[in-house]
């Protein structure tokens, strides 16, 4: 939209020529200057600039819809009104059906907690036919750290959906819909995304998984500012990809240790903060999500996987649709299984801190 050419916008000839003469070719060029600056640059009166800009703005501006129209469209065109069910009852209920289409869902947790297991299960679920609760589509799995195990994928499939997988050739069909890409750098990743865009347009790809986003970004730049900028650009791009293709995109993230003994506060809170002598410095063994606060704002749903006193929990730490709930889970041969579908509601700082206690057995498989 922003790259629309001004000479194709049916502006009066005289003003269109002036725009071209001053090298303002696309709408973005024109909108990146204030009206006063345009007046100076184009050497025309304020009234003409205002009316030309009003015309350009109307052409570039996104279409108007009503919330009702949105809902009806999604109910009509998309499976389950735009959700991919995870088969974890409590989580699906909290998310109004499952992982939502068109937005970014983040999975964050310490190593070995089960993020890749969850991703494997999701890719399987998306490739299943619609009558089994799947999306009947292809999956693109961006495997940065080479953690994808096709053997484990088939195992999850056969244990969770025995009636499908024991049929001849089904395992091959399902596994054949999952394409694994292994980019080694952020730029390679961006290139693969550009190529994927075409298949998205043709609506064959129904799920994109990036495992893990942190490894892609953190391996690249040392300095904070350039890393934030690179991340920012890629996040915008992935978001717009999700948006226009209406598919779910799941990204995994790492954790880092929490530096400092207190959480960040606003300046007005600092006045009521107790002095440092009152609070002994506690070394809490908790972690926080990597990739920074911009990233935390950019994702729409954040699922935190953590372990407290030997029990693993999956927490819905950020969701526009439900309160922050924590569900205990285990990893079995058929993937992740919730132990309790009701979930415990969390409050306050507990929502975003990530615990990694008592995780002696990394995988407690039950066979």
């Amino acid at each position: 939209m922003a790259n629309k050419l001004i000479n194709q916008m049916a502006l009066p000839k005289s003003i269109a020529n002036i725009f071209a003469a001053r090298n303002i070719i696309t709408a973005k060029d024109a909108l990146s200057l204030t009206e006063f600056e345009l007046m100076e640059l184009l050497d025309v009166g304020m009234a003409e600039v205002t009316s030309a800009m009003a015309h350009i703005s109307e052409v570039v501006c996104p279409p108007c819809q009503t919330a009702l129209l949105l809902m009806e469209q999604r109910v009509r065109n998309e499976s389950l009104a735009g959700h991919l069910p995870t088969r974890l009852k409590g989580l699906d209920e909290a998310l109004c059906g499952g992982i939502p289409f068109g937005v970014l869902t983040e999975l964050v947790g310490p190593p070995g907690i089960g993020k890749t297991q969850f991703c494997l299960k999701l890719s399987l679920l998306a490739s299943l036919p619609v009558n089994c609760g799947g999306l009947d589509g292809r999956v693109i799995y961006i495997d940065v750290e080479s953690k994808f195990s096709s053997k484990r994928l088939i195992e999850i499939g056969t244990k969770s959906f025995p009636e499908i997988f024991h049929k001849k050739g089904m395992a091959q069909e399902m596994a054949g819909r999952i394409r694994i890409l292994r980019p080694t750098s952020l730029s390679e990743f961006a290139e693969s995304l550009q190529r994927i865009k075409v298949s998205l347009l043709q609506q064959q790809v129904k799920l994109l998984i990036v495992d893990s986003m942190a490894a892609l970004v953190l391996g690249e730049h040392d300095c904070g500012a350039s890393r934030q900028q690179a991340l920012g650009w890629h996040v915008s791009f992935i978001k717009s990809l999700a948006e226009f293709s209406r598919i779910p995109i799941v990204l995994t993230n790492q954790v880092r240790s929490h530096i400092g003994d207190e959480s960040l506060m606003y300046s007005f809170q600092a006045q009521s903060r107790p002095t440092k002598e009152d609070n002994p410095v506690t070394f809490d063994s908790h972690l926080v999500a990597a990739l920074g606060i911009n990233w935390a704002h950019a994702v729409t749903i954040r699922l935190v996987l953590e372990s407290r006193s030997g029990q693993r929990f999956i927490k819905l730490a950020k969701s526009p649709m439900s309160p922050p709930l924590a569900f205990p889970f285990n990893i079995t041969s058929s993937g992740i299984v919730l132990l309790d579908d009701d979930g415990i509601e969390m409050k306050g700082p507990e929502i975003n801190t990530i615990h990694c206690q008592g995780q002696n057995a990394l995988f407690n498989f039950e066979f």
Partner: protein
Amino acid sequence: MEIGMLPISASKRGKLLAAGYTTLHSIARTSPTHLARDIEVSESEALEILNVATRTSTLDRSCGSNTNIIDGGQTAWDMFNEERFSSLITTSCVDLDNILGGGINCKEVTEIGGVPGIGKTQIGIQLAVNVQIPLEYGGLGGKAIYIDTEGSFMVERVLQIAEACIEDMSEYSHHFHKDNQAYGVKMHPNSILENIFYFRVCSYTEQIALVNYLDKFVTEHKDVKIIIIDSVTFHFRQDFDDMALRTRLLGEMSLKLMKLARNFCLAVVMLNQVTTKHIEGSFQLTLALGDSWSHSCTNRIILYWNGNERHAYIDKSPSLKSASAPYSVTSRGIRNSTSSSKRIKMV
């Protein structure tokens, strides 16, 4: 008054200066024919320059009469009378409404910022629903424009909040009009959804274009009473190497929004993200987009965690006291906090 301040093109200004016209007073005395001859433009252009000049100069000419000293202004008394009847949009949380003086004010630009997950989008959606509360229930009966830059507008959640709002209204009418069955609420959640105009913006160019277009849109839809931008920050945070340009563009955008709020008597609510800043030797949280941006809104509310409770703090307002109030986000939307001691803390 100098020629340099007239909103005319640079070449015309140059010609005026070259011909010796440096002040407005000097132009005011000539006729269009003389001016056209002196600066070598057509008569119609000269007439246009004179019109612009007279319009600009009336603004600071004093006539000496009491009530109309400056053309186009308003006396404080008139404004006070207007404000007494000005419309407020409730947030559905009594404590929050109290520190806001009754609710979000129409004719003003309010900025609400906070960390991810604190409830900014929730408040945005709640306001988009509450603006539609009919006049009989103390609302404005208006429509809402929701500008979504991040994709966080979940229709399922809007439906939940709309249904809860209708239930609350019918409970209220049942309570106060027990004998009169005719007061049943006739609203359907779908009609609430229909009155929320939704725009999805994917770049800062689209955001600026949309704000420019809103003037025309609101003229065609006069019952829009609130514009919510969620969030105003997202597209301006990446993609900008030239920070000075960003400040200028943001400044122009916020001026346009203020004009919209004033001219059409509606509320503008901007949701903002947070960033960390190094102040007085330590890192602190602050709202994004910089220091110059913090001047762009009329009121500024910061949402934060106070222990296990969500609180809202009035950081900046010309008429409201700095206070903080607790609120909670429930499955029905924004509601009062469930804590037993619901005190409002005055800072």
